[in-house]
């Protein structure tokens, strides 16, 4: 299994020189199994570039299949869907999985509301779109074994994903907060013995936003990785104030205290499991 990050930011895209090395696009990560079948985690602005690249494959002739796992339903995880080109090719199949208190369909209806989006309705996409509220049991799609769990997150929309293929385990916890006290059982279950844990890491300036808004800070990511015995930790979903320099400092600090390999996700980078 291998993965490639197309967007690593949280909240909103950050164009600009301070973000140029790691990239300013919002969350999108392409995952491939050994057979080359794709899966996408999150549809932030990074997904636009992936969509274009996929058109060179089966998706260009309407024969593509893509499971899409949403770790959250905020715009930084869903907003590029109206600009994802494979969604406009009849014959392609996209299966969206996510969780929201009002149901995923209603969230997507808001995203495509005719006042805010010229596509007018998600039903106007030409591809076949499956919309699935978080399944309660593990499932298979496109050669991947997938399990999702709701994880603590301010808005009740955060989902942790555990993705298995080729005997490897990839865990995604990019929309999670860790309240004080022991780590949530759901969090540990998603990351348990993972070959790679991708975890949210926001930089928080003193006084920046309220604590409810910040998402988990980096040292908590390390605590999760250790607690769940994950083999490698990859940070992602950085806050908009997390410049490249701050990000590298954050990684340095974690490496100083970690026995695990720690890395920072970078736009365009491929990681082999």
């Amino acid at each position, binding site marked *: 299994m291998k993965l490639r990050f197309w967007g690593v930011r949280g*909240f*909103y*895209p*950050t*164009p*600009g*020189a301070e*973000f*140029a090395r790691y*990239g*300013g*696009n919002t969350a999108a990560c392409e995952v491939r199994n050994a057979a080359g079948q794709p899966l996408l985690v999150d549809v932030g*602005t990074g997904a*636009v570039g992936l969509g274009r690249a996929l058109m060179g494959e089966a998706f260009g002739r309407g024969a593509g299949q893509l499971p899409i796992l949403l770790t959250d*339903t*905020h*715009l930084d995880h869903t*907003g*590029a869907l*109206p*600009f994802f080109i494979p969604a406009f090719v009849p014959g392609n199949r996209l299966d969206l999985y996510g969780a*929201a*208190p*009002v149901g995923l369909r*209603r*969230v997507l209806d*808001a995203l495509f*509301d*005719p*006042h*805010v*989006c*010229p*596509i*007018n*309705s998600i039903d*106007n996409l030409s591809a076949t779109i499956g919309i699935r509220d978080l399944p309660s049991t593990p499932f298979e799609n496109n050669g991947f074994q997938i399990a999702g769990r709701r994880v603590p997150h*301010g*808005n*009740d*929309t955060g989902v942790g994903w555990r993705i298995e293929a080729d005997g490897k385990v990839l865990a995604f916890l990019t929309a999670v907060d860790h309240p004080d006290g022991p780590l949530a059982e759901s969090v540990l279950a998603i990351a348990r013995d993972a070959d790679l844990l991708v975890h949210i890491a926001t930089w928080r300036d003193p006084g920046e*936003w*309220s604590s*409810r*808004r910040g998402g988990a800070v980096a040292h908590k990511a390390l605590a999760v990785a250790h607690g769940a015995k994950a083999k490698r930790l990859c940070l992602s979903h950085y806050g*908009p104030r997390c410049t490249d320099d701050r990000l590298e400092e954050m990684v340095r600090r974690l490496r100083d205290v970690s026995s695990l390999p720690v890395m920072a996700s970078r736009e365009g980078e491929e990681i082999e499991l």
Partner: protein
Amino acid sequence: MQAVFWGVRGSYPVPGPETSRYGGNTSCVEIRTNAGERIIVDAGTGLVRLGEQLVQNGEQLGNFHLLLSHLHWDHIQGLPFFAPIYQQGTQVSLHALRSDVAKLPEVLRRVARHEFFPVSMDEWAARLDFHEVHAGRRFGASAFRVRPFRLNHPFGAMGYRIEADGTSCAYVCDTAPFFQVLHKKHFLRGPEPLSTADRRALQKLRSGLVEAIRGCDTVIYDTHYTPEEYERFPHFGHSTPDQALQVCAGQDVRCLVLFHHAPNHTDDQMDGIAEQYRALGAQLGMEVVTAREGMTLPVRGGT
């Protein structure tokens, strides 16, 4: 008066090395009087940087006027991350179309609420109030006089002529040219045949626009597409620089600003567009400027 460009892109933000010179943030323009009063037009991601700067400078924030052309994501997505709305004592007056005013609190509440953004609108410290705009009905906003006019865009969009300091600046975004009906409220899979009534409506829209920009010192125009791109997407609701020039030519417009650049246009492509239309404008006696993020453009009056 001067215009400061905080975001110049259409559709969605495009960070990255290929857009670093013209900028990757979506539509947001700040118009300032010589005395420093401001009005903000559109709330794309460019608004976030403007908000950060205002808070950093520790300016007395007071009452903001924000004009919205319409509610497409690229024109509102910066609003929930506009730092001044989390400050006590700020008041934001939002001006938009009637149907948008009706929808806006709901959309904002929804996008700012659980499903989209982490903070609910109730947590905003600033006071928000909403004002309907009507085509041709002028209103005052701090030191500015504003004249709204209708544009040709899905679900309707408003352009604004803004006057202060004896100068004038018009914001014409988003709009298609006037060969296709785009302001209706249904999804267009492609160009649709025009009825006589449609043609008449389009003619009226165009003449309303021309009348509103006549004699304007600076006109900021949605020139999303190159002519080749427009041929492929005539039903997407955006114009080309040529179409903007046609509208402005002969109307005593001093400066045309190309704006709302397509997200796929690289800096090198934009350099080519900028040079081509600068030269073409010069032939027509019009200064043509291509908007870049961070650019401050003086709005100069006639002599």
